[in-house]
């Protein structure tokens, strides 16, 4: 029983995308899904978070290939811009349908 609970705690639901299950990362992907592109500062004020927190989560998403990051200069100020990749959009859609399945299962049972 203990073992079962332990594994369940690790995987709350099988097949769940751990990369965007986390609140902050889910928020970043959702915000980018509604916009063509958002800068680092836009995302920061939208998510109401700190520089460090956002950059860590954004990097994780970038490593997973869900978002693309372009760095450029606007005058002298560095500008970091994020876009959702095709893989990222698909991941969000999968996540949405996953959540819907869970809800439907509960309604039916």
């Amino acid at each position, binding site marked *: 029983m203990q073992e079962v609970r332990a594994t369940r705690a690790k995987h709350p639901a099988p097949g769940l995308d751990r990369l965007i299950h986390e*609140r902050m990362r889910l928020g970043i992907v*959702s915000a980018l899904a509604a*916009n063509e592109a958002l800068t680092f500062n836009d995302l920061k004020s939208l998510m109401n978070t700190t520089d460090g927190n956002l950059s860590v989560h954004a990097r994780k998403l970038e490593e997973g290939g869900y978002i693309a990051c372009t760095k450029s200069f606007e005058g002298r100020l560095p500008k970091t811009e994020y876009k959702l990749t095709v893989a990222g959009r698909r991941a969000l859609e999968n996540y949405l349908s996953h959540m819907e399945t869970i809800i439907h299962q*509960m309604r039916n049972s």
Partner: protein
Amino acid sequence: MNLTRRSVSFFQPEITNIQLPLLVALDQKFAWWLCFVKYLTPFQTFGIIPPMGSIHLVVPQNEEPPALHERAMDNLQYIRETMERATAFTGISGWGQVAIGITALAAAFISAQQKFFKGWLAVWVAEAVIALLIAGWSMDRKARAAKMPLLSGPGRKVAFSLSPPIFAGGIVTLVLYRAGLTNAIPGLWLLLYGTGVVTGGMFSVSAVPIMGLCFMALGAAAFLAPAGFANWFMAAGFGGLHIVFGVIIARRYGG
């Protein structure tokens, strides 16, 4: 007896035979003192540890399935809200504003040729309707381009925050017209439109509330300026400010 004396001797270490009867009398008078010195009965009740409560798990084991279901609902809600917030954030269409600015410049030009106030008013009311249509169409198009045909959230926010000042503006315009104070109308419009933009743009990119503040400042200036400049103020506000900020928003936030 012996014990009693010892307790008193705490205060009086050397007891002589003469003092003894006095001490006995003291003992009788302060017999209650024994309770505290010897038995400590009233204090002991405080010292007793109450029996421990039954041990139970903080998280009940069998509540996992509904929690999962609720979490799924919560996640969906969160995604929806974040997307709405993000759309409201950049939902204002920059190019739409530029288009509104250009039509406003045209309206300022036409209205300047009008000989009577009624004609001037009609031109600007027509321009307001055209601007509203352009704004609605361009915001809808931008939302669709982002695959978010969610006019319910961001669109409603803008509509609700802009319509009260415009409604107030309409009524005050009538009042001023009746009172014959038509010179104050351009300043009033700029000021009220500015307040609507500031409150509606609070959730949007910072360029939007700044534009609202510029409108308010221009409105205040229009009250002070001589009446002959009215059309210039209208052109600078509804034309110039819309075009300038429209270009800024379109450049920075894609369209």
